[in-house]
């Protein structure tokens, strides 16, 4: 693409100042990615501490109090500081590019969304240095336990409120961007599927996150101002916390997975050389998951005895239907395709297979009687990790390998990428599959110590081994990243023969994103540009 060299004149801002003051969606997207991957590492180290403690029976590696803080902060970092904002990072970089816009609708609000994150992260982790330690009531912060812990809990509450604010205004920004700034010719049903998943995610964030803010405010008032919201002595209701918390936190699991499904649905068609099978069905399934997501929160509360079991059990089965539709979308895309296996494709296929297991073992617990047996056991821990690690984290790496050439103009080494995938896939299944058996055998979640006589030692040791294999799998990834940065930016605009508009501009894109846009007459404008309009 022809570029005109404009001589740099006048004041040049120092690079640091430039990054701090930027309102460019691409730079903010990169900042999001750096921030979230940093907390992925922090959360991962905490996970290794958890697994080391649980490796053998009667372990004394860390004390009970420290263990409570570690598993609470592991989940808090992974959910609030990694998975949820990492999608905002990918979304920031690629939503404007995929819809052919020059930036987000509100660039300065976009910068605000990002800059709320570092103070929140610091606030949450500063709990480790205050009296009483970091938050230790689990990421779910159930009352009355969450009323009884130290000041680290208050810091956690304020941090999560800040993160929620970031998430809410970011959601409004994404919605306006996608509703109003699409390129000429891009109707809603020609919008790339990643954008669709970001759209539904943004709607969930916009409507669910404020309810979490309300819940956290109530908890803060109870803890600090003598409030009685969750205290039955004063007429409050303990289960109220669970209701308002899960009203956000169940839709939040779709906030954490939908954009990942979007990335996988970008990657599979490109490397199968076929359009996504059932584009509209996929869109409607995404909307269906978003809508049903608001009616299943009480399946976390079956055993409280205060929710309508048949309704929430039925709705939870129902939400498996649009999820199943998506599995068929992906299989149908692969069917008869001309499939190649570069690293992003491997991670995408890893996602489909692991997320399928996560969906199936989740449906187990939708059955009320089964849930009564499995509630608060390691089976649930296995389920959430098959969805959030086997699902979301595999999708994060699919996205990183797929879009790395676009963001940084360099490709990650394929051999290292494949080694990374193989180690992570093996380590993941070693770490989390045994948890199914441990859960069925009755091992409760969140315990720091178990006795020799339980017989849980062997499976826990396997699980711990798997956790360390996952950690080792990050080494080839880091080498690939460092190696890539030592090489020149040699990637063409479209190294993968992609379908969507981000591949129509140079790698990395110029500040203004596009010098010109190809016509948009389908959901695959670049395929049309390569093969002519008659190719459909």
């Amino acid at each position, binding site marked *: 693409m022809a570029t005109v060299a404009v001589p740099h004149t006048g004041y040049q801002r120092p690079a640091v100042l430039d990054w701090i003051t930027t309102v460019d969606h691409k730079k903010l997207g990169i900042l999001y990615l750096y921030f979230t991957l940093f907390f992925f590492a922090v959360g991962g180290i905490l996970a290794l501490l958890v697994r080391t403690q649980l490796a053998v029976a009667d372990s004394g590696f860390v004390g009970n109090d420290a263990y409570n803080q570690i598993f609470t902060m592991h989940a808090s970092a992974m959910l609030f500081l990694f998975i949820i904002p990492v999608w905002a990072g990918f979304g920031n970089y690629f939503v404007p590019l995929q*819809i*052919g*816009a*020059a930036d987000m*609708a*509100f660039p300065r*609000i976009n910068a605000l969304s990002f800059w709320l994150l570092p103070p929140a992260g610091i606030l949450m982790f500063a709990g480790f240095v205050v009296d009483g330690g970091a938050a230790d009531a689990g990421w779910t912060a159930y009352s009355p336990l969450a009323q009884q812990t130290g000041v680290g809990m208050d810091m956690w509450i304020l941090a999560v409120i800040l993160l929620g604010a970031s998430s*809410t*205004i970011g*959601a*409004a*920004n994404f*919605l*306006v961007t996608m*509703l*109003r*700034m*699409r*390129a*000429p010719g891009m109707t809603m049903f020609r919008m790339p599927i990643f954008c669709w998943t970001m759209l539904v995610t943004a709607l969930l964030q*916009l*409507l*669910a*996150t*404020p*309810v*979490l*803010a*309300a*819940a956290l*405010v*109530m908890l803060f*008032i*109870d803890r600090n*101002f*003598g*409030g*009685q*919201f969750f205290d039955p*002595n*004063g*007429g*409050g*209701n303990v289960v*109220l916390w669970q*209701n*308002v918390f899960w*009203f956000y936190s169940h839709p939040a699991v779709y906030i954490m997975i939908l954009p990942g499904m979007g990335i996988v649905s970008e990657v599979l068609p490109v490397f199968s050389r076929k359009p996504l099978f059932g584009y509209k069905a996929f869109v409607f399934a995404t909307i269906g998951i978003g809508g049903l997501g608001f009616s299943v929160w009480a399946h976390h509360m079956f055993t409280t005895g205060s929710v309508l079991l048949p309704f929430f059990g039925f709705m939870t089965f129902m939400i498996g239907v649009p999820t199943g539709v998506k599995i068929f979308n992906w299989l149908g895309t692969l069917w008869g395709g001309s499939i190649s296996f570069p690293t992003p494709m491997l991670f995408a296929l890893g996602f489909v297979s692991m997320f399928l297991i996560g969906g199936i073992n989740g449906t187990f617990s939708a059955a009320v009687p089964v849930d009564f047996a499995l509630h608060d056991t390691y089976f649930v821990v296995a389920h959430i990790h098959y969805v959030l690690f086997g699902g979301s984290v595999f999708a994060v790496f699919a996205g990183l390998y797929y879009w790395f050439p676009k963001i940084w103009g360099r490709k990650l080494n394929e051999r290292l990428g494949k080694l990374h995938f193989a180690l992570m896939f093996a380590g993941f299944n070693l770490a989390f599959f045994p948890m199914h058996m441990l859960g069925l055998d009755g091992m409760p979640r969140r315990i720091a110590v178990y006795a020799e006589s339980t017989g849980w030692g062997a499976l826990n040791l396997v699980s711990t081994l798997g956790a360390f294999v996952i950690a080792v799998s990050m080494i080839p990834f880091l080498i690939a990243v460092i190696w890539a940065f030592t090489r020149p930016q040699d990637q063409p605009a479209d190294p993968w023969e992609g379908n969507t508009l981000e591949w129509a501009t140079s790698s990395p894109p110029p500040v203004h994103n596009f010098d010109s846009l190809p016509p948009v007459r389908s959901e695959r404008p670049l395929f049309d540009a390569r093969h002519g309009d008659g190719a459909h």
Partner: protein
Amino acid sequence: MTALQHAAERTGMSNGMLGFILFLASEVMFFGGLFAAYFIARADAPAWPPEVLLSPQQIADGVKLELEVLLPAVSTGILVLSSITIQWGVWQIQKGNQAGMLWGLFISLALGLIFLTAQLYDYTQLHFRADDTIFGTTFYTLTGFHGAHVAGGVIFMFVVTARALGGQFSARNHEAVEACSMYWHFVDVVWIALFTILYLIG
């Protein structure tokens, strides 16, 4: 820019206005969470106000779970009136009448401040605190967060009034006035709901 203009032609609303409406939607959900807590507390209580939950010590201290309806009723009238005056201001600037808009903003600003003063005075007259049973907790949380939003709206109106005095608005360009008015209506509607559930369905 072409994409932006292309989109703007489809409907009359600007991106900023759409974003603002989405922000208000999130505010509705926030208050929805707090209202839900209130309704659950009322459904759980044997009677409302839950006097039975008061300890002998609290009764001896003079805690009374009672609300006086007269002043809040007047406040409700003031807030509804201020909603009308600010909307009148918006209609004036739509016709290009800057003086009319300024009157609308001034009066609404004054009414907003009167409402806040009345609410603070009302707080001093109550015989219960936030830690006196779920009744006090929900009352102060709901009215407190509403009051904070009124204060936010007053600041919003103050900024818009200052900009109006600087002659920044015209018949074609007055989006901030409309957004401010919309926010004020939202605050008003929340108060009408609060007044109804806290004071009327007593």
